[in-house]
């Protein structure tokens, strides 16, 4: 029995903002099922009382002094954007998404 269904993969694609085609779904569903079956092997390890590692190097918050510094030039940044207007990023419509 498959670990993950075609419908679940379609749901994942929506969550990940990937407008995948039906053909892509057919391929990905099979491949993700194989990969998930392989990575599920981590479950074989008895690790109940083992602490998780998120970074190999112990980390604490790193803060710098709160002082003004130069930053990237606005026009240079906007020049690399797909659309800009009036010194700002221009975005597609964001209201009435659910309508």
């Amino acid at each position, binding site marked *: 029995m498959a670990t993950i269904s075609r419908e679940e993969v379609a749901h994942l694609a929506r969550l990940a903002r990937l407008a995948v085609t039906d053909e892509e779904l057919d391929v990905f569903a099979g491949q993700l099922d194989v990969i998930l079956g392989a*990575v599920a092997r981590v479950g074989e390890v008895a690790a109940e009382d083992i602490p998780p*590692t998120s970074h190999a190097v112990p980390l604490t918050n790193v803060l710098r002094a709160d002082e003004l510094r130069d930053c990237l030039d606005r026009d240079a940044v906007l020049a690399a954007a797909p659309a800009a207007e009036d010194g700002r990023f221009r975005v597609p419509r*964001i209201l009435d998404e659910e309508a």
Partner: protein
Amino acid sequence: MGTPNGSEVMPTDLTRLTAAQSAAVIAAGQASAVEVTRAHLDRIDAVDGRVHAFLHVDADGALAQARAADERRAAGRALGPLDGVPLAQKDVVVTRGMPTTCGSKILAGWVPPYDATVQARIRAAGVVTLGKSNMDEFAMGSSTENSAFGPSHNPWDTDRVPGGSSGGSAAAVASYQAPLAIGTDTGGSIRQPAAVCGLVGHKPTYGGVSRYGLIAFSSSLDQAGPLARTVLDAALLHAAVAGHDPMDSTSIDAPVPPVVAAARDGGSADLAGLRVGVVRELGGEGYQPGVVAVFRATVALLERMGASVREVSCPHFDYALPAYYLIAPSECSSNLARFDAVRYGLRVGDDGVRGLEEVMSLTRDAGFGPEVKRRVMLGTYALSSGYYDAYYGQAQKVRTLISRDFAAAFADTDVLVSPSTPTVAFPLGERVDDPMAMYVADLCTLPASLAGLPAISVPCGLSEGLPVGLQVMAPALADDRCYRVAAAVEAGLMRDRGRPLLAEAPAL
């Protein structure tokens, strides 16, 4: 051309010089930096049609940097041991004014407004950036076949992969298009291409080299490092880019390990007193017999050079691959959320009617290749409520156990060794439709990545006429041990074969 220090015989073709030799020739005035750069640009013109190591060549910019190096020398103020030496920069590294795609259509045409710290340090060292090297899209892959712009080819056999994800960097150096390249390594992406192209490649201790301006794949694993034809060249480049950077909060605030001195020291091929552990779990099933045979011969070489060798067991290394393929996709699914069709790169379907979310989804489907989509979806799954504990959480615990295996092994060894890859370079197309077959290419390199430890791959022989690498792993911040052992292997191999391994590659 003469010899800058009177003792070394220099090749007359400037592209055959090592980086250290190039710097010496330039410093001695026997060739200008412009001549060295021009020789490499000519080499790119001659062979890159067959290798496809570069995504972008910046000939004018490179020549301008080379002229500046010559002017510095004329004014008596050269910048250091690599001033004027050319380099191929992996396209994951953000470069001001030079296109940066990360091997992805979603960033095609993007020209960054700033430099990564690695690139800034390369500029400050006077190193000449020839251009941007090809890679698997967003550094996800082991063959460069996931590049949106077509694969690179292995200079030893152009029908085979150069490894990946830093395959363009490796192919450029192995085909004498550059003496140096920067790669990045998340699960093996410096060491595996170095191994299958017959090069030296080092993944520094996590935090040893700044990640600022590296387009992030898996932030807890990503590290930049050097690829070169000699251990000394790799060490010189490592020293040029390593060290604390306030722009990266995971950057280690500690002195850079003495890698250059270790590379020189190892050249004496004396390893007396060194305790070497052979990792039992990194061998056996899935490893080509020819690779294992070369590895065993290299372990015997280490013993002849005075090292004491014992077998060690790291039982959780068997779970490194499944843990990695949960942790890396989870982090990538978060990191790649920044490609939202708003701030940079591609935008598809913005017709004034469609909303942001639809434009974003259409853009990401059009702009990302299949492997990136697979990993983003896999990571989204592993992080979703209901699955988090069984997948991502459990993988993080396995990561702890892998680190503990290393700590136990290093209690009575100085370095651990294994083959760098289970097989030699595989044919183009062989694994591209089988993600799991592609993933096992990183079988040997994943444990050190998960534990954040330094590891080097150094050429150690041939199998089926193709290069095999030895991986040397060391405790955190003991990168110099990797270089010392690698330099000894390089010297031992040179003594046995009479010429560098790469000299045995067929002419392109």
